[in-house]
């Protein structure tokens, strides 16, 4: 995965923040997600979709009235995890178990967000920053 620092060094004439997010993803993060609107939810991880250009995680959350709500969260690309100290198996091991996810919520206010941190069922915290910050 390209670092922001490397990116800036190579694209001095480009607009840094814009391209920093574009180089890492198939869409510009700020176009879809509101970084000023953070949501944290805890629930049961029910699905892991592990493919480019993003990973997706479905969490079933008990809402205030007791109804189950399904939250979708978007993580970095699989290639990000291929060389990192956390991978697909770590997430799959949490399926059916309780996880906590902090996201920047989608601008359309749907139950969809961009992952900032993901607490696995074993308590380990995965940070998606600065890629997703």
């Amino acid at each position, binding site marked *: *995965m*390209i*670092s*922001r*620092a*490397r*990116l*800036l*060094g*190579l694209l001095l004439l480009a*607009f840094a*923040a*814009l391209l*920093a997010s*574009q*180089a890492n*993803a*198939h*869409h*510009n993060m*700020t*176009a*879809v997600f509101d*970084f*000023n*609107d*953070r*949501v*944290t*939810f*805890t*629930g049961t991880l029910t699905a892991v979709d*592990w*493919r*480019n*250009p*993003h990973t997706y995680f479905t969490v079933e*959350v*008990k*809402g*205030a009235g007791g109804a189950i709500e399904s939250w979708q969260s978007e993580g970095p*690309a*699989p290639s990000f995890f*291929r*060389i*990192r*100290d*956390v991978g*697909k198996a770590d997430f799959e091991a949490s399926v059916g178990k*309780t996880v906590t996810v*902090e996201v920047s*919520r989608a601008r359309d206010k749907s139950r969809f967000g961009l992952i900032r*941190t993901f607490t696995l069922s074993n308590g380990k915290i*995965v*940070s*998606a*920053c*600065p*890629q997703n*910050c």
Partner: protein
Amino acid sequence: MGFSMKNRTPIAVILTTASLCFAALPDRVLGQELNAEAKSKEAVEARNKRNAQIFQNNASILTFLDRYGKPTGQIGERAIYEAAALSPDGKRVATIKDDLENESADLWVFDVATGRATRFTTSARTEFADSPIWSPDSGRLAYTAMRKGQEGIYIRAATGQGAEELLYKNPGAFMNLTDWSSDGRFLSFAISDIKGGALYILPLEGGPERKAIEIFHSDLRVLWPRFSPDGRYLSYVMLDKANRREVFVRPSDPAVHEGPWQISDGSFRSAYWVHGGKELYYVGRDRSIMAAEVSTSPSFSFRKPRIVFRQQVAVPDTLMYINRDGERFLVLPPALGQQLQQISIFNREGKVVKKVGDPALYSNPAFSPDGHRLLVVQNEIKTGQEDLWVLDIETAKATRITDDTRIKATPMWSPDGNYIFYTALLDGDWPVYRKAADGTGKEELLFRYTPGAFVALSDISPDGKFLVCDSGNVILLVPLAVSDPAARKPIDYLRDEFDDEAGRVSPDGRFIAYRSDEVKPERFEVYVRPFDAARPVAEDKKWQVSKDGVFGSEPFQGPITMLHWRGDGKEIFFRGQELDSNDLVMMASDVETTPAFRAGSPKVLFRLPGPIDGNVGAVSRDGQRFVLAINVPADKTAQSSESK
């Protein structure tokens, strides 16, 4: 189980949610460190070699210029610098220096007299410091830093002694911290994203709960807000949707309804108040240093800008900072020195058989299908633009295709040679366009993808029915049969857990060659899969063509892909991986597509000393000629369209 939502005004959320997040993270989180495979000796050696190449091609030395543009000295070691700021007393330079191995960037301070360097920050892997600014008395430094996934503004004594203090937490990232007011009471910064931008000032009085004040927001992006010495005005740069930048001035008090005033007629970087606020200096579109005489009392006024100096070089330095006395300028000279590019055609032995035109700032040369013309990207310093041109190989006669400030990428010829296809950054998107290859007529929109998504065009099917694109390491096919561009929906040809890119359709339209790192992260190989236009989704069947890696494992080599089918479909060309030097290694494999696909062993055709960018379209249809933009020492009179 349950959830909590924090949906408040931006500033309130900045203070509330950022503190929650910041407090929640432990010292070590997963996702920042490399895994065992990536730490293996082989992987580390390969990464180190790639980093060495990146350093070689991008590192430079901070250099002082005087008010006539003449170099007066250097400071610090050769490095990749992101930012630099001279202290008001002129004794020290604060810089942000990249650490490629750690994928981070940190704050260093150089003593101007002795050159002694002091490290101020040590970032974790993938995190960084940025945007250093000095207090008016030169006693303190403020800077932004990403720590545990949280960006903030920090402040520290300029001696490097004592602990740093966190001033402000940002919920997002990439705050553009720019200035410290002359009275020492405020900092200025900008935050921009695809939805626009805003200018802020941050009062230093108060405690950790201090709030930033929004001065101005726009649906355009804004950068580099600097206080006038009396604090009454802010200069800043605004980028329009086509990437054109202009310097503006407006009151620093949002309650004062004056202005804004546009100072520049094209600009590149930040503007600086000099000579006690009597002049505003900035970089003009041709990289000249410009000065506008200004007054801030009783209200703001300015006169037509004049040239302070024009750099007498073919490839201008990058301005990093202008001192408030208007006498000293900090710049970064081009990493590879004064070099232009000569469009050169090579034979299969790597010998030059033809040079086309004079050297200029060229990239991405590509043969037309008939082999008589070349498509090139030219960066014209005088206009501040990067545009597409078609050159006649025999006469070097140039035909302009585009004429605007957008950043263009992945240009290529249509299969019949009648059109030029390309992408151009517009309002955060990368739409695909085409325009007639003789330069006439209007640009035609062909395809627009997800808002803000980067799309690289990698091929057009021989029958002209599909665009082949890369986005997010997925190979997409865009059917052109649908007449309405807005209704054209991409088809996933190949979407995996690993990176697939640079799809190139065989001349008979039955296969797609591409590169992928499916076997090993950070190492790409060329593969071929069947392609059926009636069912345009990749089959599981595939054949590996390359054996020892292909150029492209560094992400920024991505758009510059050399992967070609010979016109009769009997040979595939690609650029071999070369980690020990910048050399371009041109490889070829004999292939057969009937009755079934078969690839022979790759062989080296030729090797050229680099650095050289490759390109889509660099090989002629008959596979006998290769066109490349070769670095040559710049003659300062040779630049730009004067050669045409």
